[in-house]
């Protein structure tokens, strides 16, 4: 039992930390978020050059053989920097599927360019009616000779407007919420029949509603087994859930520290507001919430990395925690900052918004508490 990063992990941490602290200040972030695509191609190229886009992939695929721990290191710091670049969509989601389910040819075609930073991709795992049940898939994949024909709607596709490749879980068999009968397709975004309604999100990221109308893809688009896509999808969504939890913990830590600093400098009634006992105790609660969240994040990451059967429960636990404690820490950070906390101008508001949206993704706190209660 040991809580230390190994040497390579520490090097990764240093490298990401330097980038965030030196090259990605709040103003830079805000400019990138306001740009057309919502991310910086330059920054993305840097990610690839520094090898971060290769982290979770097998060495044979040109990756660094990283796992849950490395992703935690990166995402926690991305939380600190409030990074808008689509690491989650490209690397964790689309890359996660490809790394697990793609054959050699498919990897060369899609995974390698993703690792190289040359292809933008995503995974369309939400449907308008699915809420948080990733097996609730109404998009239909029908056999059409040697090929397939896709029809259906995908909602809230992260990075959807930028993606050249969309990985689409579709129903090739079974009922609408069955785990069996889900097939994963790699679909070029410029395929005929795809309509993409892209938009910004309230946290400064990008997503899209995507409609598939008789979209024809050949057999080479199928990733893994026909009808057997759920296990892969489920594992990748677990990884992504853990990744945004790490991001959330990074954000919570920033909010806690910035709020503490603010309370020491902001003067009201002739004294720093940090001298008021009520705010002091609230900041102690923020500390408690942050430390407890770090503990759960470490647990969930360690059991995920070790492939333990506990991983699923652990991920639900940390997601529940960042959903509940995260909400409290976020709200208190805003409250203690007063009117400044609800100003666009200050970073606090943006950390708070991202923390809130993470709470809404991959199952909210209630959803995961239910898994813990019934599991």
């Amino acid at each position, binding site marked *: 039992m040991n809580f230390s990063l190994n040497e390579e992990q520490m090097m990764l941490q240093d490298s990401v930390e330097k980038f965030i602290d030196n090259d990605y200040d709040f103003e830079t972030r805000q400019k990138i978020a306001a740009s057309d695509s919502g991310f910086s191609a330059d920054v993305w190229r840097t990610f690839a050059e520094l090898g971060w886009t290769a982290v979770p992939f097998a060495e044979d695929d040109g990756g660094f053989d990283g796992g849950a721990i490395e992703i935690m290191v990166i995402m926690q710091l991305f939380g600190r920097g409030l990074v808008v670049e689509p690491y989650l969509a490209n690397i964790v989601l689309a890359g996660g599927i490809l790394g697990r389910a793609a054959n050699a040819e498919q990897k060369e075609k899609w995974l390698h360019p993703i690792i190289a930073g040359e292809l933008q991709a995503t995974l369309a795992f939400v449907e308008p009616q699915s809420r948080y049940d990733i097996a609730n898939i109404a998009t239909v994949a029908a056999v059409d000779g040697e090929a397939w024909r896709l029809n259906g709607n995908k909602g809230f596709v992260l990075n959807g407007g930028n993606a050249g490749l969309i990985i689409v879980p579709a129903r090739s068999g079974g009922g609408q919420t069955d785990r069996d009968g889900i097939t994963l397709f790699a679909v070029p975004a410029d395929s005929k029949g795809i309509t993409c309604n892209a938009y910004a999100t309230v946290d400064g990221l990008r997503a899209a509603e995507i409609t598939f109308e008789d979209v024809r893809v050949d057999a080479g688009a199928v990733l893994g087994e026909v009808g057997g896509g759920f296990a892969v999808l489920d594992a990748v969504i677990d990884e992504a859930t853990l990744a945004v939890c790490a991001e959330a913990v990074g954000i919570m830590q920033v909010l806690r520290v910035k709020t503490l600093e603010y309370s020491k400098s902001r003067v009201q009634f002739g004294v720093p507001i940090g001298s008021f006992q009520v705010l002091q105790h609230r900041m102690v609660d923020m500390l408690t919430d942050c430390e407890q969240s770090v503990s759960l994040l470490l647990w969930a990451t360690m059991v995920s990395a070790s492939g333990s059967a506990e991983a699923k429960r652990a991920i639900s636990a940390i997601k529940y925690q960042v959903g509940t404690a995260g909400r409290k820490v976020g709200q208190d950070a805003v409250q203690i900052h007063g*009117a400044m906390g609800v100003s666009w101008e200050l970073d606090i508001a943006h950390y*708070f918004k991202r923390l809130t*949206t993470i709470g809404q993704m991959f199952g909210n706190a209630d959803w995961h508490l239910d898994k813990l209660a019934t599991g």
Partner: protein
Amino acid sequence: MNVTFSDEEIAFREEVKDFFRTRFPQDVIDKQRLGVPLQRDDMIRSQKSLHEQGWAGVNWPVEFGGTGWTPVQKYIFATEMAEANAPAIVPFGLSMVGPVIYSFGNDEQKQRFLPDILASDTWWCQGYSEPGSGSDLASLKTRADRDGEHYIVNGTKTWTTLGQHADWIFCLVRTSSDVARRQEGISFLLVDMRTKGVTVKPIITIEGDHEVNEVHFEDVRVPLENLVGEEGKGWTYGKVLLQHERTNIAGVARSKYRLKKLRAQAGEAIRGAEPLALDRNFMRKIAAVGVDIKALEYTELRTLAAVASGKAPGPESSILKLKGTDVQQALDALYVEAAGYYALPYVPDQYTLDAPGENHVGHGAETTTSLKYFNNRKASIYGGSNEIQKNIIAKHVLGL
């Protein structure tokens, strides 16, 4: 003790219902329903329709054009207004400066300002907060120095809600620094926004909207006749104003309506999803907020009843703002939860009065839920943060 309405009250309720169904601007109600942002004109037309009915001065004394309603009538009116999904009255004129003027202003001021306020012919905004003053309002620095028949006003007010629409601003200004307590030497001044030296700068809030402003005063000449009451007594008037509309801030009727709408929405199969009403956890949360709101409703009724019977409002009134904002924010959060992923798209432009196009994201106003949630975090900050409210209650109600 009994909870039933009299026949007169029932008749009044029908009259109010009918008014909102027929005489109130229906396009404004449609906008509310569809999540279309209201424009200045929408708000003015809404209030003018109330004025035509004689219902603009809900809490005003009859002699100044008020309704003279009983507490129960006020309760019925607020309930039906919320039920109709009519927008809340913009408070700055009718609920804030109006009562100060009819309580502390001179006759000339009453004649000059009250009719326009009642008719929504002038738009008022509030000049209390300053950069740096925050919850410590008495630390305000905006100065008004006498110069013959004028005050010369210099300083900056901030978080001025809807100041971009305003014709007039009421301000707390410092007319003397030579005082024992900081609260002394503060005066209540009315300023025409078109006066030279007044500039308004937008502040964008967390959700991305322009709702509040900074208002700068640079050598602004304000006639002495625009001083309300006595010089140096502004703090007292300002406090009265804040206390005056406690129940308005609580917004119980509106919370009640929003709860009802949320419960109804949970019963629908939105976007082909299973109705949320099948999710017992979510329904329990709705039920818990419902208990709070019902309690608040009766707390408000008890307050109104006490005031009507000539008693001073008891401790129950103090909690209205606190618990009222709690409940509002709990509802905000539940709406976001209900929307799931569809709370996240930022698509304010899609809300128009035209039928929603094919590209409409989410069901109805679903994508506005998180914007409302973000924006309304202010509810526990503005108008004296909830921490300050608790300090006040501890001191003045509990005697601590």
